[in-house]
């Protein structure tokens, strides 16, 4: 079988498709996205007085008991390292998993010794991206008393803030009721800076 007749269509089509789908398509789409949805296309960046203060979609680490805490993150070298996402690949049968969860339980309970409730599962299990910006509504409500005490606020005020920041599932079906931790913490700070 002669290969020569295949050479021209092969090379020309490979070149044309590389230009069309590899350069023209992504670059034209970038231009369109930057015109129609500039905020989303650039990373949903939150600003305060013109300065960028975080992304609405990327979680941040919190360990101060006066802030709501997010999901445990397994990114390296530090948690919530958004330059290199990494999820949890620890099997349920791996003893490491139960050790890690036990350690997280201790920290949560030490910060809030009076809370007798079992901890909502998403608060002690590592996320899939290491950057999960949300916690479940249950995980937020679990932390309300601790936040109220640490900040000297009435628990009802904090609960109301959580409810205001609760995002609902799509059409009541897809996803779960959840709270964006960074946005909630920013609102907490805002609550006290504006008397």
């Amino acid at each position, binding site marked *: 079988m002669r290969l020569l007749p295949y050479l021209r269509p092969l090379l020309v*089509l490979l070149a044309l498709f590389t230009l*069309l789908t*590899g350069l023209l398509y992504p670059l034209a789409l970038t231009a369109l996205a*930057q015109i129609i949805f500039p905020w989303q296309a650039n990373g949903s960046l939150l600003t305060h007085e013109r300065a960028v203060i975080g992304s609405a979609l990327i979680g941040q680490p919190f360990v101060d008991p006066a802030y709501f805490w997010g999901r445990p993150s397994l990114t390296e070298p530090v948690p919530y390292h958004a330059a290199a996402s990494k999820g949890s690949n620890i099997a349920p*049968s791996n003893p490491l998993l139960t050790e890690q969860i036990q350690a997280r339980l201790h920290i949560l309970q030490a910060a809030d010794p009076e809370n007798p409730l079992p901890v909502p599962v998403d608060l002690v299990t590592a996320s899939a991206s290491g950057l999960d910006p949300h916690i479940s509504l249950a995980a937020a409500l679990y932390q309300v008393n601790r936040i109220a005490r640490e900040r000297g606020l009435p628990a009802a005020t904090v609960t109301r803030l959580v409810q205001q920041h609760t995002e609902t599932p799509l059409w009541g079906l897809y996803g779960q009721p959840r709270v964006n931790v960074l946005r909630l913490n920013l609102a907490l700070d805002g609550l006290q800076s504006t008397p």
Partner: protein
Amino acid sequence: MMTAIIQIVFYLLILLLLARPLGLMMARVYEGDPGWLRFLRPLEHLFYRLAGIAENQAMSWRQYTLALLLFNGGGLLLVYLLQQIQGWLPLNPQAVPSVEPALAFNTAASFVSNTDWQFYAGETTLSYLTQMMGLTVQNFLSAATGMAVLVALIRGFSRQHTTELGNFWIDITRTVLYILLPLAIILALFLVSQGVVQTVAAAETVPLLEPMTASDGTVIMSQTIARGPAASQIAIKQLGTNGGGFFNVNAAHPFENPTPLSNLLQMLAILLIPTALCFTFGQMIGDKRQGTTLLMVMLIIFVSFAAMTIYAEQQGNPRLDDMAVNQQVNDIQSGGNMEGKEVRFGLVSSALWAAATTAASNGSVNSMHDAYTPLGGLFPLLLMQLGEVIFGGVGSGLYGLIAFALVAVFVAGLMVGRTPEYLGKKIETFEMKMATVVILIPPLVVLLWTAIAVSSTAGLSGATNPGPHGFSQILYAFSSMGNNNGSAFAGLDGRHPFFTIGGALAMLIARYGLIVPVLAVAGSLAGKQKIPATAGTLPTDTPLFGGWLIIIILVVGALSFLPALVLGPIVEYLLL
């Protein structure tokens, strides 16, 4: 469980509503009528003129195969070379260096074969240019290749007394211009509206609200957030059942999949074309019920596997039962096994995705399958091992299922002592040999590679979880590569050349070892006369035949993989 069922039903309803018109439109495209997209005709003709292709020039199955192999070979070389020289090329704002050769070969083989196995970590290994001109291009072309093979096979059934199967160059050009590109543009814009990034700017640095102290005592004040032209790639990665992520954690990354709506759209995109092709098939062979019968077979297996995956995950991890952890499924938390899952999707949308992405040979993940409960991981694993014919890859899923249908009519024919027929063509020794090859290559590759892995230190170096789950990680890896899926139990340490180079070979064999015999069958069938159905013909458009086909698929899958599954997920389940 009730809302889970409603979620599945609603998802499939939207899917079918979208897939039917698309499938009929695709049938017209392959017959040369692009409908309202005919304003792109001049572009199509320009491509042919520059490439020196005559529109009436048809190919025999050998010519079609040769063109396909050469074209895919060229693509492989291009992706490999791009990774080797990306360090010196533009659109590399994070200044990532060139990729190590074995890994580059793995990624090239993976994208050309429509597997998109992800040993690379997108944001730290590949430049924007490589993602665009290497991976995105192959997302289009590998998908178009699969669809072209299916169309050639359909022509084998619908034509008679001919050697002509159509023209490979024309089929892929039409697939890209009239089907994949328009769909990708629409989906990509939808995704950007939800928050998927699409920029050529470098990573953004933002301050941390609460500064963090690292383990070595340094205080970290800011967070660097990787970005890039992601939406354009993600749209086609889902539509073309490719699945390779822009970011390391794939569709679990908030910038790849930011909201429950983006998640639903991507889940629809994963199954859209494989579903639509069932309608295309029915339309092109002139018997719609044949297409819907195959679609029902896919749907029945998919729904039952998806439901079992969701149920297994909702049971949570029994090891946490006596700890102070609340795994309950209730109104304010999705509960269950949340390790390696994202809160915005919740448990059901994560497990449903896992079933969809392994039923289709997509392989993108929105949760980490490695952290699934033993049974929650078993069903996705088995969906791949069934040969990627439950939806499967675009084109490849349906031609794989047709191979199973040939075996089904053959076995049924043996029982009653008649020559088997399918779609009006006699199925004889040659077709049966080829169909058997198509069905047996993937299990052979999966089991052989797994066996070598677990009996060598090189292979065992991959397991990162102890006990039977470590075995599952290896079995999952080769089930994925040996069926061109691309998802992983991603804890697997794949740095050893056994995985990079050996895995690349598995992917290439699983792709082209099937394409060549399928095209040979197409060539053989096209030459045969169509025979009218008689009273003795086994009807292949009935629920009875659908049920029979399901049994054949499950029996072949179970016979091949039950022992291996017992050693992995089932032992792990019993140990928990």
